[in-house]
């Protein structure tokens, strides 16, 4: 955000305002920039890539360092690692059924990559890589492709009976099948946009209310510092809300992945 000098037009014969009125640049925070100096710029290693590497290292550290002790009665870090394993394993087994064991590594990786990515994006000067549709779309298309591959390999051509639910009257088929196909094809779209929009909306709201603080101070002078406490309080409340959203969106992405895999494995 840079304060810009604005010129109030329409008042003939009057002087230009000397008050600098900051404009709110809400989407500029999501631009990519290459990090790590010359080697980084040469390969195009961006700040988003750096945070992805940090995320992966953190998840690895949680598991490797947590399980290093292998105590029967776990200490705190081991308990955290075991609880994270149990949470995702229960989610897989309950949603997908007994075949869910095979998909546990994938869902675990997905859940914790998105969770730690969302959480790291909350810190100042870090970057939320899930705020890019390219990243969330890649993950969503991966889940979609995996569900199709699993369904085709398990059921062959009978996969297409998925679009005509059992027990539906045959006369409705010309209406029902296109609707089912459309709703199936909208899965990667909704999956990617849900995560992307949640993270972008949260960060944009932060930027907008921070901009309000600067605008209020610019226009009201000293009284502005007191009045700026209101957008500040809203921003503090938003931090708590964004923490909830980070967990919730990672959980929703993972549980929907499990639901789609359940559909692929059981065909209904």
């Amino acid at each position: 955000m840079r304060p810009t000098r604005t010129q109030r037009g329409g008042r003939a014969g009057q002087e230009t305002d000397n008050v600098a009125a900051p404009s709110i640049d809400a989407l500029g925070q999501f631009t990519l920039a290459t990090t790590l100096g010359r080697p980084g710029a040469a390969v195009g290693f961006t700040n988003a890539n750096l945070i992805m590497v940090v995320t992966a290292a953190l998840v690895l550290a949680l598991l490797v360092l947590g399980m290093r002790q292998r105590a029967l009665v776990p200490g705190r870090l081991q308990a955290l690692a075991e609880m994270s394993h149990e949470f995702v394993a229960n989610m897989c087994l309950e949603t997908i059924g007994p075949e869910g064991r095979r998909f546990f590594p994938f869902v675990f990786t997905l859940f914790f990559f998105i969770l730690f990515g969302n959480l790291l994006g909350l810190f100042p000067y870090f970057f939320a890589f899930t705020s890019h549709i390219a990243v969330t779309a890649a993950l969503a298309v991966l889940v979609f492709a995996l569900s199709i591959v699993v369904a085709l390999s398990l059921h062959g051509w009978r996969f297409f009976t998925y679009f005509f639910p059992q027990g539906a009257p045959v006369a409705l088929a010309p209406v029902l099948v296109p609707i089912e196909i459309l709703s199936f094809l909208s899965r990667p779209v909704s999956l990617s946009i849900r995560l992307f929009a949640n993270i972008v909306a949260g960060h944009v709201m932060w930027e907008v209310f921070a901009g309000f603080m600067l605008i209020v101070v610019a226009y009201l002078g000293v009284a502005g510092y007191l009045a700026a406490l209101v957008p500040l309080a809203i921003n503090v409340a938003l931090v708590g809300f964004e923490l909830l959203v980070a967990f919730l969106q990672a959980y929703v992405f993972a549980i929907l992945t499990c639901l789609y895999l359940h559909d692929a494995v059981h065909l209904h």
Partner: protein
Amino acid sequence: MDAAAAKLVGAGLAAIGVAGAGVGIGTIFAALVNSVARNPSARNQVFGLGILGFALTEAVALYALLISFLILFS
């Protein structure tokens, strides 16, 4: 109407869409409270489903908000 004014009007109109999600989220939590009141022992199971439903409904609100931001800021 010039482009900047049209942007502001468009962003305002697009934000009306979040009203539907407000109704939806209220319905979900009304159902949650009702079901916990009828059967307090089912609370943990129902709570998980309620939170899932909340997140999916909130997503629709954010689709509308995203369109509003896209109109306003680009």
